[in-house]
């Protein structure tokens, strides 16, 4: 019955090497991103402009750099949170957009802006609270659904909760005083980084960085947490509590980025799949790979969003488009390989 070992020995070393390769590409990508845009003309800004063109200098340092950093944080969070949620819920078909997390964050943020004064701490707190509520609701509803396997139930419950929260956000926008500073519903639904300033980055960092660090540190434990409760318990883990900690970290970071960037979908679904293909399913590598790939993905999409046309393309539009195509390819390839 024992077939020959499929991946050759040294696979681990290769996977780690891939991880570093992705990181290098990322660094290069970030630097290049600072040089592309629509000023002074389409696509490339000559680096010399930094020195003699004041507008270019302001543009790069005050708009592009914070925007790039925000894209990095957004990508790392969505990719990392996606990987975490997939493992914790033992469901490769979820991401924060489908579990009520991102829509909850959008609702909480818009609610805070309109009715609670809109101070940054309030907005982020409200976003995090409703993101957690959204996820809790998805989980509880999934447990009560009577038909289908766990994967299906969670996806269905998540869709219900997400749709409810999205329409609630629309209602807040509709009922809100149009003279107030509430971004369009399209911003919340499709996301965008065109309004990011240094202040926004500084608001996000204190929440996102510690949470990402927590996720990174717990990456091996995540493997254990993806086992059944009984088994995890027998391995000395407190499955409920530890899963809660890691999920809260993932959700809090997601809420922080969604409150600034709107909902950007499909990243958390696709990136972990690709990461697992490249470096294996072990979360010790898959989680950092998801963060790095997520960063790369969002950065690339955001560069296109602000550079390709003479206007801004909503970021979520691009990630959905590319994400859906990738997903199609993934699903079709699975069938061709004939895996059960």
């Amino acid at each position, binding site marked *: 019955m024992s077939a020959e070992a499929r991946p050759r*020995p*040294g696979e*681990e*070393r290769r996977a*780690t090497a891939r991880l570093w390769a992705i990181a290098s590409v990322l660094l290069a990508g970030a630097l290049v991103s600072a040089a592309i*845009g*629509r*000023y*002074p*003309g389409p696509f490339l800004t000559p680096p010399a402009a930094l020195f003699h063109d*004041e*507008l270019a*200098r*302001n*543009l790069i*340092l*005050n*708009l*592009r*750099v*914070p925007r790039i*950093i925000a894209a990095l944080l957004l990508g790392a969070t969505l990719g990392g949170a996606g990987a975490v949620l997939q493992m914790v819920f033992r469901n490769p078909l979820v991401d924060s957009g489908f579990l009520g997390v991102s829509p909850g964050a959008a609702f909480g943020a818009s609610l805070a802006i309109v009715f609670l004064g809109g101070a940054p701490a309030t907005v982020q707190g409200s976003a995090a609270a409703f993101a957690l509520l959204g996820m809790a609701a998805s989980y509880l509803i999934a447990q009560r659904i009577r038909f289908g396997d766990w994967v299906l139930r969670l996806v269905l419950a998540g869709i219900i909760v997400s749709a409810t929260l999205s329409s609630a956000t629309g209602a807040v926008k*509709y*009922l809100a*005083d*149009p*003279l*107030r*500073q509430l*971004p369009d519903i399209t911003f919340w639904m499709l996301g965008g980084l*065109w*309004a990011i*300033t*240094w202040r926004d*980055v*500084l608001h996000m*960092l204190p929440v996102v*960085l510690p949470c990402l*660090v927590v996720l*990174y540190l717990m990456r091996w434990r995540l493997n254990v947490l993806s086992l059944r409760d009984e088994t995890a318990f027998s391995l000395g883990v407190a499955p409920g509590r530890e899963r809660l900690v890691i999920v809260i970290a993932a959700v809090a970071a997601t809420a922080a980025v969604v409150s600034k960037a709107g909902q950007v979908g499909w990243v958390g679904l696709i990136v972990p799949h690709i990461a697992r293909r490249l470096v294996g399913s072990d979360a*010790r*590598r898959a989680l950092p790979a998801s963060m790095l790939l997520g960063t790369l993905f969002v950065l690339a999409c955001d560069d296109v969003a*602000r550079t390709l*046309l*003479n*206007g*801004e393309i909503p970021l979520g539009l691009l990630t959905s488009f590319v994400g859906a195509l990738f997903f199609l390819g993934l699903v079709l390839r699975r069938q061709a390989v004939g895996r059960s």
Partner: protein
Amino acid sequence: MSPSPNISRVVLPALLAALVALAGTVPALASPAKSAPAIRVTDASGRTVELERPPRRIVVAGRGPYMVLDLLYMFPGASRRLVGVEKKGQAASDFVPLVDPTFAEKAVLQSPGPEQIAALHPDLVLARGAVLEATGIALGEIRVPIVYLGLETPEQFYRDVANLGVLLGQPGRAREIASYYRSRVARIRAGWQGVREADRPRVLLVEYAERGGAAAVRVPARPWMQTLEVETAGGRPVWLDSAAPTSGWTVANLEQIARWDPDQIILVVWYTLDPAKVLATLEADPQWRALRAVRTGALHALPSDIYGWDTPDPRWLLGMTWMAKTLHPERFRDLDVAAEVRSFFATLYGMDESAITRDILSKVRLDVR
């Protein structure tokens, strides 16, 4: 086989620390502000904006850019200063080319972010609105001044006119424009002075559109120009009685309208529809015939030229003028609306008689009841 390299314990935290340090120090690298400004205005969002000298490269962006352009072009030499316009909603290319033959050469932007606007090297961005929005904040980060024009009420309009006069270095022209408006508004008000509150007609103004084949009838919000036009022209807006849950257009159904039982109904017909046809359809419709105003022939269509006369566009004066004559015909017997239209475009835009007749009045249907 090998565990994660220990180097990641050092390199990754170092990268993170570098990131945080970068976030803290880079803002300081951006250039500091320059010396004392010569021009200062307080715009519709309450902000104070300062310029060193009158702008030479203006970009119009944001919602309803054609309204801002219609105001801007009342100032001579505006065309020379304008370099780019955002294309959004009803196109400015319908009216402004009549006044400015070089308009086609201006840059057209579509949902621009700050970079696309910056590519035009503007020294002033004009936008309609009362709140500093995201794009405005971003433009602030790269030191491009943005001035908001409210336009929504006559009071705001006068402030906007004054601001533009200061910005463009043409305060005299601004005063001319303001006094043109004020005098006519005063004349309208004086015309129905003395009419008792109870005798003033109860007016319903609705936007009539067809969406997906079904008719949609909506009433405007309380603070909007449509409401103010009706009030200034001596009418009583009936839709203010019921509290509108939204501060935008609110759908009204026929039951509601019947309950209001207005004396006069003014339709703002969606610009793709033919007002004469719409009126004919409604007058033949039994549900509408049940309304007293329709039976007594008090159903009107608000005229328009290229743009509507009911919006925050500077044409609101014309809407108000027509309404005054329609609501109080006996008091405004001497008021010649067509002449007012000629005077408007000649004085404010410098158009000549034949151009007005050909391009403006040809589109105005004053007589569609």
